[in-house]
């Protein structure tokens, strides 16, 4: 524990020294932007300290950022919608130039406010009306669009003539794959005999697609790392 403490102290001093040099050399300007880069670099390194082990520095950075992000998200909801639409339009109600239709805006406002009763023991049941509206309407809107966009539109391109060509072969592979995957996720029949064989084929297709997702996910995480390393080397240290 004490060794770790010295390591951290040393790193903090090193970080301060590096920033001192950067400021003295003019790599970083002594203004808000320069300070921003220093803060961002400090937080980035604090979070990376997790790689050594879970530690207080990491947790402090993690929690501060959760707080900042929460406030940012609040501000976006406040200025754009709750103030920008609801407050502005409702406070114009009854005024001479307000359209009569604006009264309708009271309905979602009330539903929205009722939602906030959820944490109250006595009035919590009122929030059920908001959720009933929200989830019920969402469920209704989903059904026809799911059928159109995900069932019909996805089936139709497979119902094409098969042929002796590369396209025909690919179409056949897709047909076999889709059917096999659906059979794999079919729970009414025991997976033995022909059904068992087809579902094995389904697993192969699933595995190839998981492999593709796996490769792409690795790519995504590395891209983020590249972004952060670029920030450290270029924006902070200025050595790229």
């Amino acid at each position, binding site marked *: 524990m004490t060794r770790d403490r010295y390591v951290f102290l040393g790193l903090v001093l090193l970080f301060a020294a590096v920033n001192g040099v950067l400021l003295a050399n003019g790599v970083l300007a002594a203004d808000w932007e320069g300070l921003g880069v220093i803060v961002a670099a400090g937080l980035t390194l604090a979070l990376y300290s997790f790689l050594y082990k879970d530690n207080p520095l990491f947790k402090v950075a993690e929690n501060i950022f959760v707080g900042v992000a929460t406030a940012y998200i609040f501000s976006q909801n406040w200025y754009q919608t709750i103030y920008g639409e609801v407050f502005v339009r409702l406070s114009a109600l009854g005024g001479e130039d307000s359209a009569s239709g604006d009264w309708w805006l009271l309905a979602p406002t009330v539903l929205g406010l009722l939602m906030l009763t959820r944490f109250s023991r006595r009035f919590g049941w009122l929030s059920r009306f908001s959720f009933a509206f929200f989830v019920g309407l969402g469920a209704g*809107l989903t059904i026809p669009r799911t059928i159109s966009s995900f069932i019909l539109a996805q089936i139709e391109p497979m119902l094409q003539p098969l042929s002796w060509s590369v396209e025909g072969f690919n179409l056949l592979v897709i047909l076999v794959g889709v059917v096999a995957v659906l059979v794999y996720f079919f729970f009414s029949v025991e997976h033995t005999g022909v059904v068992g064989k087809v579902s094995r084929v389904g697993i192969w297709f699933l595995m190839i697609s998981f492999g593709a997702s796996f490769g*792409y996910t690795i*790519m*995504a995480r590395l*891209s983020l790392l590249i*972004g952060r390393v670029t920030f450290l080397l270029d924006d902070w240290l200025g050595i790229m």
Partner: protein
Amino acid sequence: MIQWLMNIDRRIIFVFVFLGVALPLLANVFLPIRPTRDVIAVYDQLEKVAQDEGVVLLSFSYGASTEPEMQPMARAILRHCFSRNIKVVAVCLWPEAPGLAQQVLEEIGDEFGKTYGVDYAFLGFKPGNFAVVLNMGQDFRDAFPQDNWGTPLEDLALMRDVRTLRDFDFVFDLAAGDSIEFWWIPYGQEKYGFPFAGGCTAVMAPDLFPFLQSGQMVGLLGGLAGAAEYETLVGRQDKATAGMSAQSMAHLIIVIFIIFGNMAFFLSRRR
């Protein structure tokens, strides 16, 4: 020996990865990039919009956590739009997106000397996920009565003729979550039939291939590699292209790790 190699501290591996990423970046190597079909399709679609002097709706559906992947993509697409005098309307469907969207719009707008309100408009964030798309389709002004800073849309020259999603010649969604698949396709493209494409994080990309084949999407930019391909098409090498050498190196290291690890696994099993 193998056991020893397999049990080395993972922090040593971390150092390997860091170097694998940092060294190619410091060496400034640019590898030649070959754009793929789905990326070229997006480029061609925007060229078509440019010929018709059309308007593009750019939807920012990503947040700070994927900034290194998505921001270069937004930059490349905007460069293409502005260099070909395509008008751009930007909206945000993720609460963390506005800060990022504003950054790229101002940066690339200045680069090409574009005027706010005439060449592009920034309408900010609206909560509601798919409901915003549905609302924009029915009545664009109903969903976005003002721009990000409270200016009514009537006061923006660019927005005068925009009434619904149908009035856009192309919609492009920059997505870190499932906004392409579960918001834009079923609630927008399905009904209004506008040409639609997206750029997404690499995590999401493999899930979207069914929509390319069915024609529900025109094209797709997947992750930083997709952004790099687009930079190549636009002819302006930037952060994504610069990152590709590091990306290649890091992939190579991971592939070697997987192969080596599995060889050790099978050797130890045979014993």
